[in-house]
C-alpha cells in the first residue's frame, strides 16, 4: 500500500492532476468507477477552493483502513489562505464569495462519506474528506 501523497496546488492545472491521481488511488483501493468519479469530483471542488480563495496550498491523498477492516481514501485540502469567517454560511448551498456556484464545500460533503473542516480567519483552512469502499 502506498504512503500518502502530497500534491501542491498553485495553478488550476494542479487541480486536474490532483483529481486524476485521486482517481488512480481510489481505483487501487477497489472503489467502483462511479465512486472514483465522485471522489475525483470532490477533489476538484476542494482543490479549486484552494486556487480561488487561498491561491496556494496542497491536497494530501492517502489510502486508509478502518478498525473494522473497511478500505477507504482520505483527501485533505490544506491552505494558509484567508480562512472562512462563517463556516455555517459557507456550508450552505449557493453561498459563494468567489467565482463559483457556491457548491464546493456542501457538494464535496455530499460526494464523500466523512467531512470535517477546520478554519481560522487569517490562518487558513483544512478540509478532511473520507470515503469508504461499499
Amino acid at each position: 500500500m502506498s504512503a500518502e501523497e502530497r500534491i501542491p496546488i498553485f495553478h488550476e492545472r494542479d487541480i486536474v492532476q490532483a483529481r486524476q491521481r485521486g482517481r488512480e488511488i481510489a481505483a487501487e483501493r477497489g472503489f467502483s468507477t462511479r465512486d472514483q468519479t465522485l471522489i475525483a469530483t470532490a477533489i476538484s471542488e476542494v482543490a479549486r477552493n484552494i486556487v480561488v480563495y487561498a491561491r496556494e496550498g496542497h491536497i494530501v491523498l492517502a489510502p486508509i483502513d478502518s478498525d473494522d477492516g473497511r478500505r477507504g481514501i482520505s483527501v485533505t485540502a490544506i491552505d494558509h489562505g484567508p480562512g472562512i469567517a462563517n463556516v455555517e454560511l459557507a456550508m450552505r448551498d449557493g453561498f459563494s464569495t468567489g467565482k463559483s456556484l457556491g457548491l464546493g464545500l456542501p457538494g464535496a460533503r455530499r460526494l464523500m462519506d466523512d467531512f470535517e473542516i477546520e478554519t481560522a480567519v487569517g490562518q487558513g483552512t483544512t478540509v478532511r474528506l473520507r470515503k469508504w469502499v461499499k
Partner: protein
Amino acid sequence: MVPVLKYGDTLVATIVAALSDEDLEQLRAEVIDKVGRFRARGVIIDVTALDVLDSFATRTIRGIASTAQLRGADTVVVGIQPDVAVAMVQLGLTLDDIETALDMEDGMALLEARRRSRRVG
C-alpha cells in the same frame, strides 16, 4: 486545446481531455468568436471524454451556452457520462437551463428540430 469545427451552420467543440480552467476560458472565447465569424446557428459541446464536470466547468459551459444564445445560436451539451451525471446531481449541479442530448447524433437532431420550429413559428 479544444478544436472548434464547423459543420454547415453548426459549431462542434469536442472536449478530448480533462480541461484546466484556462482551457475552458479559451474555449468560451473561441466559440463566441466563431459564432460571430461563421454566423453559426447552433453549437454542440461534446463532453463524452470528460471524467469530471465540477461546478466551475458546469458554470463555464453554462456561460458559453447563454452567450452563444444571445448571439443567436442554440447550444446543446452532448455525451455527459452516467457516472459524471450522478456526481453532478450529488454536487447539486443542474443544467436545466441548457439543452442536453445523449450523443452527437441526438444533439444534431435537436438543433435541426429547433431550427425548423423557428422557421415555422
